[in-house]
């Protein structure tokens, strides 16, 4: 353990886990003491979902250096397949928790398979071209899911991707009803499961980063040609990262879908993908704890600003721009460096401020 803490990476990881666990315990305690309002209780699950999405996208954007604009597409696949699986298992599996887990795994698997299939052609592209193709993928998914019908009636299970409404027999029930989306979904999600999802996501992503796979992925990002020259199969590694990221997004999507009684395909649009990307970039590329914190803050922010009424979204935009400028601008970084240097100088008299190097 001592040795573990010596390693800087493992120390950062421990902190990340610790922060999440402590936050969970605090929220759970407050919740059990009935000290949370409905709105805060309402945030808990989607917040966990967005944290997971941000962390899994960070694997792709921050660690691999691949810009993806279609993360919400994977989330959507996960959500809808999770909903279908949860509904189908209703009669056979009694435990809600087991059903939720099954739905999440199915959602993840479905998204992972999709990620793999898309990855085969797409991962040949790089940079902004990869970005536009992932955007295209998200739009295709949204369009197709919006015309998908899944349901059961007396004659059994029905599935159709069709421009005209699929009709079920008398007493049939739609799980996914085209543009209306999934309605009458049983709410299985809960905060503990959200917390577990975050932990699993963190575990997978952090372990991946700190394994030989992660080392290889970082090498590929740093210098693709050199990585290839030492025998690293670049395409395979991009694919692995892509599929893992899609899988995690699918799991998060399934939890999200099962947290609401109705959901439509339009939720998983470009804007949602962009929002997740904003969490990642603001939290710092490759900084997992940063993603967790920025997803939390940015998700809560517009909610906390409800009091501003019609000015809410415009102020959110202003805050977003300002935060980006403050965290990324070289000038501002310089200014803060000088500032912290001065502070250090106060505490360490005798040494010239800002001249510590």
């Amino acid at each position: 353990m001592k040795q573990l803490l010596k390693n800087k990476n493992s120390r950062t990881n421990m902190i990340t886990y610790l922060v999440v666990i402590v936050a969970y315990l605090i929220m759970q305690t407050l919740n059990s003491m009935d000290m949370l309002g409905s709105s805060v209780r309402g945030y808990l699950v989607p917040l966990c979902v967005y944290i997971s999405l941000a962390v899994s996208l960070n694997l792709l954007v921050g660690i691999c250096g691949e810009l993806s604009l279609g993360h919400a597409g994977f989330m959507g696949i996960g959500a809808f397949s999770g909903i279908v699986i949860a509904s189908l298992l209703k009669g056979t599996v009694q435990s809600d928790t087991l059903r939720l887990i099954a739905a999440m795994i199915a959602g993840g698997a479905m998204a992972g398979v999709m990620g793999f299939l898309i990855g085969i052609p797409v991962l040949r592209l790089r940079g902004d071209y990869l970005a536009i193709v992932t955007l295209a993928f998200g739009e295709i998914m949204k369009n197709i899911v919006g015309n998908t019908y899944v349901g059961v009636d007396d004659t059994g299970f029905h599935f159709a991707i069709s421009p005209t409404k699929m009709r079920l027999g008398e007493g049939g029930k739609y799980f996914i009803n085209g543009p209306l989306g999934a309605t009458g979904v049983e709410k299985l999600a809960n905060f503990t499961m959200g917390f577990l999802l975050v932990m699993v996501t963190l575990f997978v992503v952090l372990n991946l980063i700190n394994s030989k796979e992660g080392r290889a992925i970082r090498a590929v990002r740093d210098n693709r040609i050199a990585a290839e020259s030492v025998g690293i199969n670049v395409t395979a590694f991009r694919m692995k990262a892509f599929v893992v990221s899609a899988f995690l997004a699918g799991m998060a999507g399934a939890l999200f879908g099962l947290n609401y009684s109705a959901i439509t395909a339009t939720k998983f649009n470009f804007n949602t993908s962009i929002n997740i990307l904003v969490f990642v970039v603001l939290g710092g590329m490759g900084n997992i704890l940063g993603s967790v914190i920025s997803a939390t803050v940015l998700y809560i922010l517009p909610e906390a600003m409800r009091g501003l009424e019609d000015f809410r979204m415009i102020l959110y935009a202003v805050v977003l721009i300002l935060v980006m400028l403050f965290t990324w601008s070289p000038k501002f970084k310089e200014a803060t460096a000088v500032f912290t240097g001065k502070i250090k100088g106060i505490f360490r008299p005798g040494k010239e401020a800002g001249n510590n190097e």
Partner: protein
Amino acid sequence: MKKFVALLLAALMAVSLFAGCGASGDEGTTPQTEATGSASGDEGTTPQSESTDSANAGSEAPALKIGMTGPLTGSTSEYGLAVRGGMEIAVEEINAMGGLQIEFRAEDDEADGSDKAVSAYNTLKDWGMQIFAGAVTTGSSLAIAAETVNDQIFMLTPSASAADVAMTGPNIYQMCFTDPNQGASAAELMAQEWPEAVIGVIYDSSDAYSSGIADGFLSKAEELGLNVAVDDAAFTADNKADLSTQVTQCKDAGCDMVFLPFYYTEAAQVLTYADTIGYQPTFFGCDGMDGILNVEGFDTSLAEGLVLMTPFDANATDEATVSFVTKFKENNDGKIPNQFAADGYDVIYALYDACVAAGIDGNTPAEEACQLLQEQFATLTIDGLTGKGMTWDENGMIAKDPAAVVVTDGVYVPLG
């Protein structure tokens, strides 16, 4: 070590922000949220009333808290803002009458249909909402409906028209027509007035409202044996910038009647393009079409002969409508209200009438109000801006006359 402390601090800050939010949410009406969306400058109650049942017992009953969610920002905010505007007028009028006072609050749900919608609703719940008068869009209503069933909060949506909304629970009622019903009535009307017409249908396949009506229309049309030549001219929210193809399809199929079950925003586009290419069929719209004559810059002559089924006519000369339209214009920079605003207005009055009849006031717990209102709505009959003698069936769906009008010289004239 320094970094560790820094990170821990950051984390603690995040947690405290989170918890801080929780606390403020819990109190419901912090000063900053108090002003929100409430059109209640002149009410007699203190906004600090934390809960509805205990604090003010004995003194005069606090105001009844009615909440609404809808898109107040974003691409569909037009509808949310209209409903809010209509509701605010009704609340002002009611509060001015004395008697039962209403405190009203609107929250932005961004027409999101999942997390944002539920969180807007939760914010209202924390505020102490007793009756829910939303949501505006079908997606958000579907997501919130299940919550209201759990919480036993009465829900009367002004404009969420999918049949599934009311079917979610016994506590959910609708003020507008349900989509399949509206589609079916349109088909019936066509069969009656234009039995020989060659019909084309253009609809928004990414929108529940539009595809719901189209679906209801097509199945009824099949039953009635109408001649539908084009039934798949759909568009989506992403590609509605260009509707020329769909219009051309109808033109090429020789349609002399084109059914447009979507909002006037896109309809204006269809009418303009059809005019450009000299295509002059009879256009037939639904309640979402109301408002087309008031689009700024729109040449109303293009809408000449347009048939639409709307429950509301802003140009009507009856006293109620005139007064409503005047007030709405005053409050909204001269904007003319559409049926969304009228539905919102009617919702507040329906709730008010029912509450007065059932003796519900600011002290009634939401669950109790929910029960009482359900009993009331079973027998309630309302005369409003969007219809006379409106009643509700046991599913919570409204029964009102689908008044069909035809645009003549820039105003609505009853059909026939």
